[in-house]
Structures are given as C-alpha cells and as structure tokens.
C-alpha cells in the first residue's frame, strides 16, 4: 500500500483488520473500513474504470456517490459502486464495460472515433430504415452499458421492512446532527439517516482551519447517542420521498418503507467539477474527494497537486494535502481577488504558490492517457474566458477542484419544495416547503459552521413544533453570509473538446452547444436529447453545469432556465431490493396433505391450490383423468370442493336480501331446499353463480365460485348497506371444508356414515339437510354439478380431513375414487353446465348463455334486472352453443379460446372443449353468431397452426339430457 498514510486521527479504517481481494486479476490488500476505490488508490492503482461511451480511463472523482467512474462486478453482483462499497475478504472484482480489462481496454478506440458520435447521433443514424433498428439496438446494447447480469447467480432475498418515526433527519453533518438532537430532546422518535459509513458529514473531512471540527463531531455524536429516542442509521440512502412523508430507505441489505411525520433535510451539497479539457483523467478529483482520502481513509491522493479553487474550501483542501505530505504545486484561484480569509493567509504562510484570476484550461495526460502529467493554466479575462496566449504548464499528478457546490436537494424537490437561484450565493436554495418538510444547513445555503448548527437546531425545533411536541419557536433562520463558495461558470471551452460535463454519459461541452443549436433549448428537452443527468449519478455532478451552460447559451439567468424534475430514486437501487421478499399467499383446504398422499397434481385456481388430478402409476395424465370420470359415472367419486365460497346470510331481511342479490325467486323457497343462483352486476353481466340453501326462514347458506367468495361478500356487504336491510353476513369460506360425493352408489356410501335419512323421499334432489357425518356436525346439499346422484358435504374445517377419510373408507368396497378439477370439468361439460369465468367473460349476460330460465324477470327487483330488460329487447350478438367433432376426428385438437371463423371473419370462440370418455367423442361449448346456433349447423374453428376444424352444433346437455341420474335413486351392489 504505497500510498497509505500514517494513522490519521479518527480515520475510518481498522488497521488491525487487513483484507485481501483481487481486482482485474491482481491481488491487493486494504483494511476493514476501506471502500474498494480507497483500497485500490492506497495500492497505487489509478485506473479504476472505463467510461460509458468512449471507454476513457477513469479514477476517483467524488468518492461520494456523485459519479460512476468506478463500477465493478464480482461474478454474482454487477454495477458495484466501488467508491461506496466496502472491500471484503477474498472478493474478486473486475471493472464493468471493458473489452480486455480496465488497464488495456480495447474499447478505447471509441475515444478516437468520438468526433463521429455527436450528440443525438443515435437518433439520427439509426432512425431509418426501421427494419434494421433491432440490429442496431442489439449492437448498441452490446457496446454501451454497464455490467453484465449473471443469470446463474444464487437467489438471495432482500427482505423489505416497514419502519416508523416521528422525525426523519436526512444527513448527519453539523446541521443534521443538531436538528436530530433538538427534535429528540422534545421526546420525539427521531431517525437520523446517513449515506456514508460513519456519521458526521463534512465534520469528517473538511478539517483544516477548523481545529474544533473533530471535537464538535464527538460532542454532537455523544449527545445524540445519549438520547434514547434518537437512532442513527449509517450506510443508508434516502432513495425516494413520496406523499404523506412516505420515504424509501436503501441500505446494503434491504429497502425500508419508512413512514414519518416530519422530515428535516440536511443533506448538504454536492461538490461540482470544473469543466476543462481532460477533466476526467485519473488524478483530476474534487477537493472533497481528496480530503476524504486523507482524513477518512488515510490515503495519499497524489504526490504533487494543482489546486483549482474558487472558494475557501479549496484552500482548506490545499492545506490538508500539505499536512498529508503532498506537494501543492500551485493554487489557481478563479477569483481575481483571491481568498481574503484567514485560510488564504494560512496558505500564503505555508508558502503555497497562489495565482489569482487563473483557471485550469487543460489537463495534460501522461503516457497512455491514464494519468495527469501537468496542468495548463490560463489567466482569465474579465468575462472569465481564458487568455490562451498567456498559458503556462505546471507539472503535477493531480488537479484538485474546489469551484463550488450544488444543493443535494433531490428529496426536497421530490417533496414539492421549489428551489430558486440566489444570485448572491450562486446557489439554488429552497423557497416554500410543504407542511412537515424542513431544510437545514448547506442545502439551505448556510455555510458557516456555527450557522449550520443554529439552522439545524431551528429546523429540528420547527419539526417538533409542527408535531405539537414543542411550542412554536421564534428562532429565525440564520442569515446567509460571507463570500459565495460557488463560482458562477467554472466551464472552459476548448477547440479539441474532451471537457466533460456529464461523466456518466461522456457528454462534453460541445454536445450541449450542438443540442441547443438543434433546437433542444429547454432544460427538459436538452436532458432527453443529450441524456445528461440520466446516468447512475442522476445528475448530481452534471445538472448544475448543464443548467449554467443552457442559461448562458440562451442569455438568461438560472431561474428562467429552470431545473429538471427530481424523481425517485436519487441513487441506483438494485432490482433485488425492489423485489424484496415476495409474498405469494395461497390457500389450502384441510384435505391438502391427503391429496398429496394420494398423488395429486395441484393447480392454482384463484389463490387456491386444488388437485388437478391424482396421478396413478403406469397411467398417463389423460388416462388418470378418464379413470376418475369413469368412477364417478359408474360407482362413486369424491372431490374436494372446499374452495367454493360459502356465505351465511342471517336476519329478518335475509330472504328479501337474497331476492335482490340473485336472479332467481326465493320468497317461497322452502326451508330445507336449495336453488341454483346467478348473480349479475348492474349492467346485467354475469359475475357469479352457486347454490342457495334455506336453512331457516331467516337463514340462508350460499355457495359461490372458488374465485368469487371475497368479491361476492364485498358486493353483498355493499348492497346491504345501500339497501339498509337487516341482514348479518358471514363469509365462512375458510371455516368450512366441503366435499362432493357423486356417483350412482354415493347414497350407499354416505349412509354408512350419517344419521340423516338419505332416501329420495326424505332427501330429494336440491334438498339441504343438517345432521352428523362421521360423528361431525355436517350440512348436506343434494346437488348435481357433475350430473350424477351427489351430496355436497360441508363440515367445519378442522374436521374436514377426518370426514374425508371416513367417507373414503366407507366407499372403499364400492370402488370410490377421489377425482380432481380436470375430471370435474369433463363431467360438468358432459352436462353442459357452464363455469362462470371460463364459459363467460366480463361482458357475458345470461341471455347469451341460454340461462333465461334462471331469470325471474317478473320479480320486483334484482341487481341487473333493468339492464337485462333492455338487453332482452335487442338482438343477441353471440350465443353459447354446444358442439361436437366427428366421432372419428383425428386432426389437430381445438383448445379453449380458439376462434370460431365464419366467412373469414371471427364469429366467436371456444370456451370449453374436452374429449368425453363417456360419450367417446369431443364435445365443447363455443360462442357463435346467433344465426349459427341452430342444431345441426356446422361452423369452423381455427386451431393452432391455422388449420380449420369443422364442428357441429348439437343439443345440450350432451349426457343424460333428462337429468334422470342426478334426480333418481340407484341401487348397485358393492364390488368385491
């Protein structure tokens, strides 16, 4: 570690914890607390990455998340921000976006070709012919871009979490710490968030000339940590601010959704680069980066530096460098008057050469263009333009820039704060802020240390007063004072360019000029056309200079030019963080484990897991399903129908309520009887169906479709309120297990387990009875969805498995078999029973599916009645019909949603189609034009591949048209 300095006071690295890692195939070492960039810099590595477009070598610029010069991948993760990411033992890293490695990137030929890639080149060159765009796009994606995604990366979870506080303070510099302490002292729950690894903000690195800075940081932190209601969270970014003080926090592990009641933004400022030729060379860095290297990481930034200054901080940085053993060759001060503070005197006393009214016109690259060899300085004319004839060259290996700051105002602007340019300060400062949002410190334009502390305290107290924890404070905001730390235009044109404004996107000064010449002369248009501020840094180092350039080109001030819109996220957030831990709730019936034991293959129906069919050894899926169908038709089958919605409707108005909700008539429905129910919405569209059972005069039990239970319950509750009826609704879907025992011997099977009289006379078709089954209180509905004698058995969920097993045991001697959803679909289709949601869609009304019989239009009212009266007077546009294919059909099999074609036009679609093992032919339901609905009519179905299959309209039901099987009793012998 040739550039590691002796121990610095309060350095962040832990020298007793060495860490080894690899970068670009070479071994390096650092210390715990180092970031990847600082560890490499300490090892003398200067080229940390390659630029996005021109593959130019890049080093440390900001060391503070303001640029993406140094980005790496480690085989698992990509786009690792090296400035921010701590080194880890054994990590193997390589820079992203290089061809052949970071040092000798073959892609640097792009830099030589850069004159051929003016701004907007892509839009112009690849616009036509359009057919070639996919090719261009592919090539561009290959050439540009950041890291590669490793699809084989092991799945890791980034669990999201929710968090809460009274006051969120963003930024832990002097203003932030002061604000947090003030609010916490009022008893409020305060969360102080710092993006760096340690709190303190500028107190951690802007030290020279402020001997008290370290002591002040210690005092503030000590006080903060003594307050039990104040939590400090480091290495955490406030990535987004949303309505009602909802804030997205990002740390290394997770996204935290924070709900706070007030926010104090003390985010400080982002130091801004000067724009001159080759200002992106490794070795050209912001003064704050150099200071961070020295004080936080004990790394020597360079050997000999030219400091380009336009404020006191430049002098402070120069003195810091001298303290760190670096030679400061020259301070070039952009201001003609130079530095007139004690810092200026101190620099003079230290013997530092100072040239006031000078700027850096160009950085001279060393061999291979991978470092700085010298700086070309020019005196500045009165208008700030460099006098090139008087230029001189000064040898150095670094140019340290301190020319001004831009407020870190993204959170403020996302919160609705309007920023206005203060001409005296040469900075955007907040104006009006929404309730509960406060700014403090440098982002507020307050630079003097004591003023930052006072401003932080004021903001903290204002937040407390806003929350009612403190009487409104009369303390006023400290005045902005002292010379402006910001140069109004630290930007120097150069005929050979390479004076970069946006380092992320390799945008040069000329690109902005050309864009404006082409008419993209509003800030938002300029952003889209040039792409400035659209890289990973989100304009933190480029937005202000872009606005300045545009303002100058348009001859107006910054307030007139405006700024771009601030949107979340303020920094790149990995998709893994956004995805987090995925919750995918699914429901299981009480018999789930038994289905598994029986070999069920499950399918998702709504959010339920249901057995599709039960796999059998040596049977294909189709064979297994046919076996299940056969069992139901010939013996008995048992299906788990616990997923059906189950709603109890109680109360004196229960009958009236159900009369209004459903299309059938219920007023005269006898206790102990059930009825098929159809539910429509106000427009007459079918939304659900099921069975309603009358258990008592004022008590009904209604089933719904599997996916309809919640929505039907909500609709019912809504209408109950609207109508003001006295009903009590209870959704019992999960509380009851349900199974349907169906088949000609189902009565004999059930008789063994129940005390209910199952005889046809006592328990007729469409009856409901309550009694005991297998010793458990049960509710039995005699229904026939599959077209056989059948009993739906409803018992409380915790006893569902018990009853299932008892019935299976009772039916064993009859050859009972469990059957799944697929067999049920075949069985019901043989009976032409429609499935709502499969044979209907979001526009289907009962007249289209032949359900006039379910509509009691002479009732006084039901939901959808008026719409159905209107629809009834109009000609139908489609009709659901049953169809068959020829018995010897052997062509491509139609599928659900295949189109019905009539005269080359779409006439409808297939909604259900299966091969019926009972009828030994293909049957289905399809929407056709009304003129096609006649029995015997033939129509065409277009199947996969475009072939047309001829189908014939037939009368339905396909099976047992008189429904004798489900209504009559049967007596069969037990099988051996």
């Amino acid at each position, binding site marked *: 570690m040739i550039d590691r300095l002796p121990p610095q006071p309060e350095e962040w690295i832990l020298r007793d914890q060495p860490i080894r890692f690899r970068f670009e195939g070479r071994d390096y070492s650092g210390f715990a607390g180092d970031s990847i960039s600082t560890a490499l810099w300490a090892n003398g590595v200067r080229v940390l990455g390659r630029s996005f477009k021109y593959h130019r070598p890049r080093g440390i610029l900001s060391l503070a998340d303001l640029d993406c010069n140094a980005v790496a991948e480690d085989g698992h993760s990509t786009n690792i921000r090296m400035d921010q990411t701590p080194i880890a033992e054994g990590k193997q890293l390589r820079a992203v976006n290089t061809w052949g490695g970071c040092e000798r990137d073959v892609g640097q030929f792009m830099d030589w070709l850069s004159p051929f890639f003016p701004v907007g080149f892509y839009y112009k060159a690849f616009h036509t012919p359009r057919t070639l765009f996919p090719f261009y796009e592919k090539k561009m994606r290959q050439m540009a871009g950041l890291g590669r995604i490793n699809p084989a990366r092991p799945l890791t979870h980034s*669990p*999201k*979490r*929710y*968090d*809460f506080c009274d006051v969120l303070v963003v930024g832990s510099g002097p203003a932030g710490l002061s604000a947090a302490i003030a609010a916490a002292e009022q008893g409020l*729950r305060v969360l102080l968030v710092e993006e760096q690894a340690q709190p303190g903000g500028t107190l951690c690195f802007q030290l020279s000339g402020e001997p008290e800075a370290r002591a002040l940081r210690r005092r503030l932190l000590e006080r903060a940590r003594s307050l039990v209601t104040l939590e400090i969270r480091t290495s955490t970014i406030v990535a987004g601010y949303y309505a009602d003080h909802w804030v997205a926090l990002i740390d290394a592990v997770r996204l935290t*959704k924070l*709900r706070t009641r007030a926010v104090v933004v003390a985010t400080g400022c982002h130091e801004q680069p000067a724009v001159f030729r080759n200002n992106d060379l490794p070795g050209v860095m912001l003064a704050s980066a150099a200071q961070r290297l020295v004080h936080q990481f004990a790394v020597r930034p360079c050997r000999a530096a030219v400091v380009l200054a336009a404020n006191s901080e430049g002098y402070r940085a120069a003195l810091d460098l001298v303290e760190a053993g670096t030679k400061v060759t020259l301070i070039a001060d952009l201001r003609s008057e130079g530095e007139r503070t004690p810092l200026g005197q101190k620099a003079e006393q230290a013997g530092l050469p100072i040239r006031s009214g000078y700027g850096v016109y160009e950085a001279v690259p060393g061999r291979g263009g991978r470092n700085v060899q010298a700086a070309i300085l020019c005196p500045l004319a009165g208008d700030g333009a460099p006098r090139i004839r008087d230029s001189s060259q000064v040898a150095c290996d670094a140019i340290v820039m301190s020319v001004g700051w831009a407020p870190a105002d993204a959170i403020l602007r996302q919160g609705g704060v309007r920023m206005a340019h203060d001409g005296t300060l040469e900075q955007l400062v907040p104006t009006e802020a929404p309730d509960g949002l406060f700014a403090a410190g440098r982002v507020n334009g307050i630079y003097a240390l004591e003023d930052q502390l006072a401003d932080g305290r004021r903001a903290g107290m204002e937040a407390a007063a806003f929350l009612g924890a403190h009487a409104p404070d009369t303390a006023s905001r400290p005045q902005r004072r002292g010379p402006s730390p910001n140069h109004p235009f630290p930007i120097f044109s150069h005929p050979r360019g390479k004076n970069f404004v946006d380092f992320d996107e390799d945008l040069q000064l000329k690109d902005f000029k050309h864009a404006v010449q082409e008419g993209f002369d509003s800030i938002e248009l300029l952003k889209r056309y040039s792409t400035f501020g659209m890289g990973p840094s989100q304009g933190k180092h480029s937005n202000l200079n872009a606005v300045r350039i545009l303002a100058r080109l348009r001859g107006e001030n910054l307030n007139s030019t405006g700024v771009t819109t601030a949107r979340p996220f303020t920094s790149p957030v990995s998709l893994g963080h956004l995805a987090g*831990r995925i*919750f*995918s*709730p*699914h*429901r*299981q*019936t*009480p018999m*789930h*484990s038994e289905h598994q034991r029986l070999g069920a293959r499950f399918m998702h129906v709504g959010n*339920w897991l249901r057995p599709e069919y039960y796999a059998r050894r040596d049977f294909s899926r189709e064979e297994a399903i046919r076996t299940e169908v056969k069992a139901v038709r010939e013996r008995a089958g048992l299906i788990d129908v*616990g997923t059906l919605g189950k709603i*109890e409707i*109680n*109360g004196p108005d229960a009958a009236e309520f159900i009369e209004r909700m459903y299309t059938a008539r219920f007023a005269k429905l006898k206790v102990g009887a059930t009825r098929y129910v159809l539910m429509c919405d106000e427009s007459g569209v079918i939304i659900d169906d099921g069975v309603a059972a009358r258990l008592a005069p004022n008590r009904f039990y209604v089933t719904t479709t599997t996916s309809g239970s919640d929505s039907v319950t909500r609709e019912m509750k809504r209408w109950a309120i609207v109508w003001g009826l*006295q009903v*009590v609704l*209870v959704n*019992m*879907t*999960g*509380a*009851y297990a349900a199974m349907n025992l169906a088949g000609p011997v189902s009565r004999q099977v059930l008789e063994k387990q129940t005390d209910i009289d199952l005889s046809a006379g006592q328990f007729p078709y469409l009856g409901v009875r309550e009694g005991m089954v297998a*010793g*458990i209180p049960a509710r039995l509905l005699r229904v026939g969805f599959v077209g056989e004698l059948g009993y739906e058995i409803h018992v*409380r*969920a*915790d*006893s*569902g*498995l*018990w009853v299932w097993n008892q019935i299976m045991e009772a039916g064993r001697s009859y050859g009972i078999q469990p059957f799944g959803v697929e067999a049920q679909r075949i069985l019901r289709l043989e009976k032409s029973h429609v499935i709502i949601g499969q044979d209907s869609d979001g526009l289907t009304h009962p007249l289209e599916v032949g359900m006039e019989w379910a509509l009691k239009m002479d009732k006084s009212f039901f939901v959808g009645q008026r719409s159905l009266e209107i629809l009834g007077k109009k000609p139908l546009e489609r009709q659901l019909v049953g169809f068959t294919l020829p018995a010897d059909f052997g062509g491509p099999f139609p599928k659900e949603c295949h189109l019905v074609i009539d005269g080359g036009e779409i006439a409808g679609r297939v909604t259900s189609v299966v091969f019926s093992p009972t009828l030994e032919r293909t049957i289905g339901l399809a929407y056709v034009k009304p003129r096609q609905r006649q029995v015997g009519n033939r129509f065409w179905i277009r199947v996969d591949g475009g072939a047309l299959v001829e189908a014939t309209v037939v009368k339905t039901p396909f099976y047992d048209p008189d429904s004798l099987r489900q209504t009559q009793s049967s007596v069969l012998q037990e099988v051996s």
Partner: protein
Amino acid sequence: MNHQAPRRRSPIHDGLACLNPTWTTVRDMASVLHFQNGAAEVQLREQLALCDVSCFERMSVKGPGAARHLEDCGVPLPATLYEYLQSDDRGLVVRVDSQEFFLEDAPESRLVDLLKSRLEPASPGVYPVHRQDAAFWLTGNKATQVLAQTCGLDFQKPGPQWIFSRVAGVSCGLLPWRLERTPVFRIWTDASYGAYLWEELLKIVREQEGDAVGLGCFFPQLNSSVSHPVTSPE
C-alpha cells in the same frame, strides 16, 4: 392406554409434523407440546418464538342482540371497539365490531363451550359464527422485527387493541398482548391461509434466530396432564 386419534386437526398440522414434535391433544386436536426441551423453549419464548394455538376453541357472536345476549350469559364485555377483556383463566373477549364479539378459550377456560350450548337454538338478533382460524402466538422481544418485515403497521408502541391488518399479504386479526413480561402478538387468520402464513413467519423467525415452540412453554399444566402424548392422526 388406548387413545382415540383426535378428529380436529390444526390447519398447519403438516407444518408442525415435519418438525418432529412431541404431541399432545387439546380439545380433540393434535397439538404440539414442545419441539425441544422445555428450558430451551422458555428461552426462545422470551427472545423470539412462534407457537400454533389453533387448537383453542373460539367463536364469534354477531348481530344486534349479541351484546345483550352475552351480558345475559354473564360475559363481561369490552366497552369500546377493538378493546379486549381477559378472564383469569385466559379466556378472551374482543369487541371486533359494533355488533360483533370474538371469543377464544385457552386450554383451561370453557367460556366458548358454555356459550355454544346457550346459543342453540339461536336467539333473535344473535348469530353465532363458527371460527376455524389458524391462530399463532408470535412472542419475544424480537417479535416486532418479524412484524416489521411482514406488516405495515407500527408495533413499536402497540396499544392494547385488536387490529385488522395484513401479515405477509394475508388478512389477519392481531392483538398485541403480554404474557407476564413477554410481548406476545396473537395472530388469527383464515384457516386456508394458515399453512402459508406459518411457513412465511417461521422462515423469518428463524432468520432472526428464533424458532417454533410448543404449547408446553406457555401452559406448563399441559406437560403434567398428558402423560402419554397422543400421536397425530397420521
């Protein structure tokens, strides 16, 4: 001793069975007495633990006559919405709606049994509701860390009130509670979501160095009353 297999079954029975617990029977339901030794589970209970209490009997009483009827039955009722009362034997009564009360027995209380017998046949304006919830206790000082990952509510300073919210994407009733000095979050959800919710919560509990515990560490009397833990129906 010949024990008949219990007929009631927890909605998360399989999730429990795969952890090889020692079973007991509570209210005709196979329930976990413990997974580890008692001392270890008591320690977990204080730090972070998840316990299935689906075996408790519970019911709701709804309707305009519910409050009057319950008072007539001698059940003390919470005065305000979402408030709860607990009997000495840990029976629970919660006012979950203006006309709805949720009642839950602990192993030693019999309030629900008593009420069920008095509600048949139903009185006018009084509607008993069978409850078949999956019910869990999330306990310990780190319980809020699990809820912070699964529920969008602030539990740092929970009030003593019933809460309707979503946990891991599932609608739940929650009751912040204390068992002596141990924070307990009682969670109820639809039985059909039970297996899913148990699995998700246990995953996060284990990430936070907690684990599943049995009823034995909350109800020591179960350890002595069941000399021969009954095997599960399987």
